[in-house]
């Protein structure tokens, strides 16, 4: 009996050890936001199911994942936001060429949104409406005659873009621009929807809030007229302060992978260049993880099962 137990323990170590060795061949870095957790798990399932390669997930921030792809310890970043992560892109994709970017991307639009009641009951349809002091007053809760709106977290690169745009369009004079944690802003949206209170706020897609509530993006003037130098934009904290424009246009994210995969695992590199997520897909993923609190690994298995047609095309 003791001998059997020893054999069992030995076999267990063998299995774990073998798995670790194999898993080291393909490591996906996982940043700490929901959509990246979802796509990382989905890509893992696709590679394991369709290409029979073991994949390890490793939590790390953007910088560490790029360093890992450069050093060969991590092979994939599931969601590189541009222009937010322009500095990393320039260092590793353009200069060192140790990281490649899929040519496909998911559009990540940003702007100012409102609840449906704000648009239909209060008639706020564009950000130009916010420049009208009388209209702005419907958002005034602290009795100073100006409305209030959340414009993002103070450490988000996009927040400076929002401020610049508010100045450009003039609603910085009629609205108090509030910076604060996103959970506070999301709770305010929950409350506003529940009681029909008017609310405008910074928003970006993909985001679970669009699946949770009926949210309307406010119209904006032609963005070409608003271009001027400010900090780089984006919904996720990128931190870079490169000169960019005050437009929200062209924000997007790509799968990035170690350039060496093209030689060491060409079938993986080919797959990564053909995976085509879209905004609605990713919004659904974040809703499943954030609102429904599904386990990312369990969710990924189900997602792969229900999207077999798309995946067939990606691995073809």
């Amino acid at each position, binding site marked *: 009996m003791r001998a059997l137990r020893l054999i069992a323990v030995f076999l267990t170590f063998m299995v774990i050890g073998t798995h670790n060795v194999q898993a080291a061949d393909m490591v996906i870095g996982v940043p700490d936001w929901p959509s990246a957790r979802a796509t990382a798990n989905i890509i893992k399932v696709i590679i394991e199911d369709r290409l029979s390669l073991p994949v390890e997930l490793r939590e790390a921030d953007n910088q560490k994942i790029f360093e890992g792809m450069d050093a060969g310890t991590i092979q994939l970043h599931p969601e590189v936001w541009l222009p937010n992560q322009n500095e990393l892109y320039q260092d590793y994709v353009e200069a060192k060429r140790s990281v490649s970017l899929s040519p496909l991307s998911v559009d990540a639009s940003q702007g100012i949104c409102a609840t449906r009641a704000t648009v239909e009951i209060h008639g706020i349809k564009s950000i130009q409406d916010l420049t009208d002091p009388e209209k702005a007053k419907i958002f005034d*809760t*602290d*009795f100073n005659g100006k409305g*209030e709106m*959340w414009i993002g977290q103070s450490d988000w690169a996009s927040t400076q873009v929002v401020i610049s745009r508010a100045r450009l369009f003039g609603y910085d004079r009629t609205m*108090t621009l*509030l910076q*604060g*944690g996103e*959970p*506070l*802003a*999301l*709770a*305010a949206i*929950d*409350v506003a*929807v*529940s*009681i029909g*209170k008017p609310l405008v706020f910074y928003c970006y897609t993909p985001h*679970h809030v669009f699946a*949770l*509530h009926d949210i309307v993006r406010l119209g904006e003037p032609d963005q070409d007229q608003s271009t001027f130098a400010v900090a780089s934009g984006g919904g996720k904290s990128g931190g870079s302060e490169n000169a960019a424009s005050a437009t929200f246009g062209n924000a997007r994210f790509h799968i990035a992978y170690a350039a060496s995969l093209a030689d060491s695992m060409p079938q993986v590199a080919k797959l990564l260049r053909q995976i085509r997520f879209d905004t609605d897909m990713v919004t659904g993923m974040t809703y499943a993880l*954030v*609102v429904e*609190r599904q386990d990312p690994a369990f969710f990924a298995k189900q997602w792969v099962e229900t999207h077999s047609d798309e995946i067939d095309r990606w691995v073809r």
Partner: protein
Amino acid sequence: MRFNLDQKHGSTTMRKFLAGSASFALAFLVLIGAAAAAQFFDPNTRKWVEYDSSRANAAARSPAEDPRFRRQVVEFRTAELPGTIIIDSDAKFLYLVEPDFKAIRYGIGVGRDGFGWSGIVEIGRKAEWPTWTPPAEMIARDPKLAKFANGMPGGLENPLGARALYLYQESRDTIYRIHGTNEPWSIGLNISSGCIRLKNEDIEDLYERVGIGTKVIVIMQGPALIKT
């Protein structure tokens, strides 16, 4: 025992006369607003701060008997977990998130003419019929409170009412509380010294539903934004 957080310049007789009447309650607020500066607790400096009361009660508008402020289950779509408390000091509602996109909504009264903070805190302590200890600054402003410097025992005259939930941030007491009241007419109004007050029957109900560690979100609107 007639003086407390919110009515320290009014008499018991006057309070009885005003009870249940929103318009008279407003007049009363103007009276106390003119007579004394309010205070708020600055969580950054962890001090009570004086400010003028010129903003007082511009938004005082909803009497306690308004059916909106009765405890009720409402539709409430959120990504927050059941058991989370969300406080809207502007609309004067406290939500306790329930499963299946529902919430129990309670009417509240909040900071007299300022609140000065929003954020995410947690319930660090609970107490039944809590003792109330007026801050030293409040006693300095109103010497009649000196007899309570070591604490006013819990009871019907105690401004904290039947129950208190003590709000903590990073394991430290913020000095803010969600508590009951000995002035139920004040629900729906902007009167208290930075705390969040419910009718006694409501705080007793909430008290039984939440535990230590409950997440409390105070959103960035209304009195939560007023610091001066």
